[in-house]
């Protein structure tokens, strides 16, 4: 919710002054808002024909302590899924827009900060020889988006798909997120802002191990119970100080921040420091120079969790309480004690600088040149130390040390020319043209030392066996674009085209062309029905792409070590010199409507996107040699859906104001075509344990035409064989669900009492996704979970019921629903009386008590239906002990002076 723009005519005599009074009118829709993302140059929202979402972070943080970039996007924009999937502090998160649009390429949108593409990696490091290292912390990895300090962010604009993101070319088919950092204002005195928070993380005590307290081992030992003994309060503490202002020609924004956060299962913490200086200098009436410079230091002690023998949570939960001893009080876990897991030191230590220079030259009032150049430089060092003398399953007892360096350089260069014209041949509009290039280099080097002689030495070189490996990727893209918008009164029609060349395209493939068109029609006030105060109809169609991996086009053989440590090679990638980008053609239809003087804003969109030339890994028969499949542009994927956002001021009295926003999204994903290499196959349909018929589909690997990407097809239990006391498992695998939810909704409610109290609540829900709940299978098979323990006799002896449960979990991985409704945010903000803050020498000052991820309702037989051990970039089937998100409680103080 915001305030609408208003106008009044007033006559001012020469040298005189005039006073005009406005009463701020609440507005749920603002078609005069200026946006810059997705269109060449700044433009009012009413002139664009696409659904463009924006989040005003500065406004949100006034009432809600925001301590992470991804948290800002949670439940605020329909079509954008931003959720925590792994509970460790600093761990990777899911961030995806409008579903799954690729079989093989990443799903994260491309992210810009002040016009510069930035590293948004979230996951473990891949492509390194397995002897050299590992998944450092169990599959989730750290999230480079956690480097960002939300207190530096002014607003975020989100393009949800190709219809809006065409001008971003060969990496924009998954959407674009543009982050704008804060700037100073001209002729403004220094304005200081201080915010500080203190609080704690704490897991909900719903781990499935409560019944362990009922049992005592044969030796009389009382086993530890994770809910009671593993969960702790994890301290949160943060400080941010900013100052902004400006004179006639120069504006500035300077900020510094530090945050410290511990996980609820320890050791796990994150220390982050951020510095930023943004300057803007109007060098002349035509030339403006802007400089942004942001530095962050982010040191994460990563939590060992997930699909990982070394996980703390893993070993605590999968311990058999009847094996508990004083040395292994939980019961031993996966042959690693919790104490030994906790002794592992796992760090990610990142230095990052992101900066840009922006030159804007107004050659004429209607002709502007804008050039932007910038760099995102990330140096990430990871270390893992498994101390000598402790026991780590396959690693043994002699210790291991892993170190790794990941260096990323992303250079962006961008030129935009904008020519506005009026009555040119009778037509008014705006023409823009430009070019954009980027050059990405990522290098990764790692070393491992295995087998130490004793304690005291923890450097790689001190180990008896050492290993090293490197990985390198380089990707260069050059794109040109032109756009023209015609203004026909209330109708705005835009056409544009972008042409890209990319180093990852096959050598026999040339440039890729991406066209787009959109139209926005703002209905005149006089034709609108009584209650309707504004209505914009919009339609857009556009194409954007996703480039293949940097070296996917080459046929390659991997060097390896064979026989007596000598050099060998093995065939891996068959290559494809005709590789093209994946192209996604999307159209969308929608409207932005204001009702009752814009007290209610409705934003509705139907979108339909087809990924063409989707890259599929076409496996070759093993007898044809190459271990990798051949990437070919053969697939077609359909995503379509409906997005609805309704914002309204339910109550607007002088002492009470209640704003409510409802977001809803429905989406459907379907594989349309897998190309000529797909083979005909069949899926059985079981009813009441009987195979009643077959459905026929073409398939390649785990992808089936007519089904969504990311489906669960596995064998299930179809009955009970009483004679042999065993469950009956289906002979064939059958369809049991999909990974990704097809419905998401959120409600944001904001209730103010007077000027001093404000209560904000967010609920959000997801429906339609399932998981292969392997945790249950492991937990039962390991004699660890309540699901089995509740059927055991008083001394732990097996019963027919416990045998039945074990038998079930030996035969299948059960499929459980990920449906859930979650109380995501609850915050109460108190604004100090002006007399008090004034007495203290302060301006507006607030105190906020907030809670996040407080409670959720589900029926997934798991601690958290959002659990996913691989973290953000690979949301999929398996929770695999990926530690649920903790609840967060914060007390914040924010003031200006």
């Amino acid at each position: 919710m915001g305030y609408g723009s208003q106008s009044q005519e007033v006559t001012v005599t020469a040298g005189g002054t005039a006073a005009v009074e406005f009463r701020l009118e609440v507005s749920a829709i603002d078609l005069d808002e200026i946006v810059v993302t997705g269109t060449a140059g700044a433009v009012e929202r009413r002139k664009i024909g696409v659904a463009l979402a924006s989040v005003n972070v500065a406004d949100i943080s006034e009432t809600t302590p925001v301590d992470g970039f991804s948290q800002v996007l949670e439940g605020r924009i329909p079509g954008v899924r931003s959720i925590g999937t792994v509970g460790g502090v600093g761990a990777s998160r899911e961030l995806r827009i409008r579903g799954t649009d690729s079989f093989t390429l990443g799903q994260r949108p491309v992210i810009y900060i002040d016009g510069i593409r930035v590293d948004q990696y979230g996951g473990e490091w891949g492509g390194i020889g397995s002897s050299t290292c590992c998944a450092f912390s169990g599959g989730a990895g750290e999230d480079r988006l956690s480097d960002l300090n939300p207190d530096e962010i002014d607003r975020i604009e989100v393009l949800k798909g190709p219809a809006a993101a065409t001008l971003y070319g060969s990496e924009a088919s998954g959407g674009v997120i543009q982050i704008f950092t804060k700037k100073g204002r001209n002729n403004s005195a220094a304005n200081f802002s201080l915010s500080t928070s203190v609080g704690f993380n704490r897991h909900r005590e719903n781990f499935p191990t409560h019944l362990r307290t009922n049992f005592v081992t044969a030796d009389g030992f009382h086993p530890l119970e994770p809910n009671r003994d593993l969960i702790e309060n994890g301290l949160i503490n943060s400080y941010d100080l900013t100052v902004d202002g400006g004179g006639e020609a120069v504006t500035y924004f300077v900020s510094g921040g530090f945050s410290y956060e511990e996980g609820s299962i320890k050791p796990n913490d994150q220390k982050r420091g951020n510095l930023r200086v943004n300057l803007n200098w109007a060098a002349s009436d035509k030339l403006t120079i802007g400089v942004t410079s942001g530095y962050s230091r982010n040191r994460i002690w990563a939590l060992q969790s997930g699909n990982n023998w070394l996980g703390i949570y893993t070993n605590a939960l999968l311990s058999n309480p009847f094996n508990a001893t004083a040395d292994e009080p939980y019961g031993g876990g996966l042959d690693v004690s919790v104490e030994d897991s906790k002794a592992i030191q796992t760090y990610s230590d990142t230095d990052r600088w992101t900066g840009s220079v922006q030159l804007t030259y107004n050659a004429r009032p209607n002709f502007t040149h804008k050039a932007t150049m910038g760099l995102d430089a990330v140096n990430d060092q990871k270390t893992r130390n498994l101390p000598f003398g402790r026991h780590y399953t396959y690693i043994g007892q002699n210790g291991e040390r892993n170190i790794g360096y990941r260096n990323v350089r992303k250079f962006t260069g961008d030129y935009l020319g904008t020519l506005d014209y009026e009555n040119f041949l009778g037509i008014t509009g705006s023409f823009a043209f430009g070019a954009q290039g980027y050059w990405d280099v990522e290098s990764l080097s790692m070393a491992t030392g295995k087998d130490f002689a004793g304690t005291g030495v923890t450097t790689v070189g001190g180990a008896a066996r050492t290993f090293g490996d490197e990985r390198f990727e380089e990707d260069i893209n050059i794109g040109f674009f032109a756009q023209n918008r015609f203004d026909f009164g209330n109708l705005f029609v835009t056409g544009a085209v972008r042409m890209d060349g990319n180093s990852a395209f096959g050598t026999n493939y040339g440039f890729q062309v991406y066209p787009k068109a959109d139209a926005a029609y703002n209905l005149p006030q006089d034709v609108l029905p009584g209650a309707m105060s504004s209505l914009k109809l919009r339609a857009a169609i556009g194409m954007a792409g996703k480039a293949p991996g940097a070296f996917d086009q080459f046929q390659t053989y991997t060097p390896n070590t064979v026989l007596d440590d000598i050099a060998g090679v093995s065939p891996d990638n068959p290559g494809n010199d005709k590789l093209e980008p994946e192209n996604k053609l999307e159209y969308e239809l929608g409207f932005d409507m204001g009702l009752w003087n814009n007290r209610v804003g409705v934003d509705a969109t139907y979108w339909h996107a087809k990924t063409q030339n989707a890259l599929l890994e076409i496996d070759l028969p093993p007898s044809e040699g190459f271990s990798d499949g051949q990437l070919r542009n053969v697939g077609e994927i359909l995503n379509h859906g409906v997005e609805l956002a309704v914002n309204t001021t339910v109550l607007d009295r002088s002492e009470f104001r209640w704003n409510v926003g409802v977001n809803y999204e429905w989406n459907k994903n379907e594989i349309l075509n897998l190309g000529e290499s797909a083979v005909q196959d069949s899926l059985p349909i079981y009813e009441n344990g009987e195979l009643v018929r077959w459905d026929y589909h073409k398939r390649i690997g785990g992808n089936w035409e007519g089904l969504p990407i990311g489906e669960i097809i596995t064998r299930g239990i179809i009955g009970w064989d009483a004679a042999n006391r065993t469950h009956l498992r289906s002979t064939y695998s059958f369809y049991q669900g999909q990974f990704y939810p097809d419905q998401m909704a959120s409600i944001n409610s904001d209730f103010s009492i007077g000027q001093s109290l404000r209560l904000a609540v967010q609920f959000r829900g997801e429906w339609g996704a399932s998981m292969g709940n392997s945790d249950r299978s492991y937990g039962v098979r390991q004699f660890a979970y309540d699901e089995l323990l509740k059927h055991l006799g008083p001394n732990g002896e097996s019963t027919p019921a416990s045998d039945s449960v074990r038998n079930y979990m030996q035969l299948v991985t059960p499929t459980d629903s990920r449906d859930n409704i979650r109380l995501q945010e609850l915050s109460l903000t108190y604004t100090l009386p002006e007399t008090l803050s004034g007495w203290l020498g302060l301006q507006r000052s607030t105190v906020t008590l907030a809670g996040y991820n407080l409670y959720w309702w589900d029926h997934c037989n798991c601690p958290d239906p959002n659990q996913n051990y691989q973290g953000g970039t690979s949301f999929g089937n398996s929770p695999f002990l990926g530690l649920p998100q903790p609840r967060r409680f914060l007390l914040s103080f924010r003031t200006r002076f």
Partner: protein
Amino acid sequence: MSIKGRRGVISAAVLALVLSACNDILTVSDPQRYTSEDLDQALPAVANGVEGALHEVMDSYVIYQALLSDVYQHTGTWIQYDEIDHGRFQYGTHSMEGVHAAWLRTRWFAESAEERFNRVLGEGVAANDPLMAQVHLAAGLTDLYIGMTVCESPAASSGPAVSDNAILTQAVEKLTRAMQTASAAGKPEYVRAAQAGRARANLLLGNYSAAASDAAAVPDAFSYVAKFNNQSTNSIVTLTTANRNEAAGLREKWWPMIDESATSNYMRDPHTNEPDPRIQVWYQGEIATDNLTPHYSQYKYDTEQSDIPMVHSSEMRLIQAEAMAFGGSSDYAGAMAIINQLRANVGLSPLPVPTDQATMMDYLLSERFAETFMEGIRMVDLYRFNLVDDVFGAMNDPERPVSGRPTKFSMDSGEALLNPEIQDDLSVRCLPRA
């Protein structure tokens, strides 16, 4: 800005556009992998890669064969191990598929290497080159292991599935070719390895005289091993051995036979109760990774770099003994002379010459168990002598019923799915069962 200045901006922009249109700017190269052209200058690495590819899956092969036989039981958390141990798997759902697929890739790589050597070296030179001998040996042994393990397989790239005996017959042909090439190249160790492999292939085909003849040509103390190194480690150790991930251990039936005295840690000979140093085991009262089962560990392989014997002279002696006993002449005395010599080599008392076939078979099998312990041979014996019913029947384990238990693995379903000559259909693919 002056007109001159504007021209400067425009010129710079045009120059940038022209430069950016240049193709070279969009050219990158992958420094971490070889191209096919690179390999023409690296022929030894190609030959080593072929042989190494055969070796590197031997550890997985041994584990899966041990789980399907009466050697190992699952003691960890992996349902894939559990399925094989309990004999619950079917076509398309077992982990030996990956090993079969790796062998098929190795065979393709061997054929591609042969073409490369002929092209780069010339056919005349290549035919007598040690690298060609190395590749021919690996190709022959690959077919031998495919025939030992799965009930059917394509005999050539994207070819139709043929029976295990057809693959073994092809192995005999390829190993014969390997012997010829190795001989011409002056590589006697390859000749012996190929001949030892051919001896086993002939044995499995029931060609006792050819098997005995080949076996006799392999001298004592010869061994050809799958080599493991610092990068390619032996997962029998990392995944199933004491103080590592104890995901599989010796079956419960062997526990009473394990000498737990501090000095030996050997399994006892079933006939004399003497500790047999060929069967090195380990038990310290540990509970395995499944949180339940005592872990009785193999200890024949004790480091990640421990090599796994593939063919060796003691197995050859036992092939000779088997041919004497069961090749038509029933020469039990001759067979026992060989067996007792092998026993004497490790300090075990001799066994008497049996008077009946069953006892002779018992002695032969127990010697083969000891000499080829954890080499993936036991399951081959249970299959070829049709012993799965007896062995698992004697275990009388309700969780491991005999009826319906697979006695050999089915082929890789990925090959069947993608190979147009093979039908990916559970109902037509073979999977022998008890």
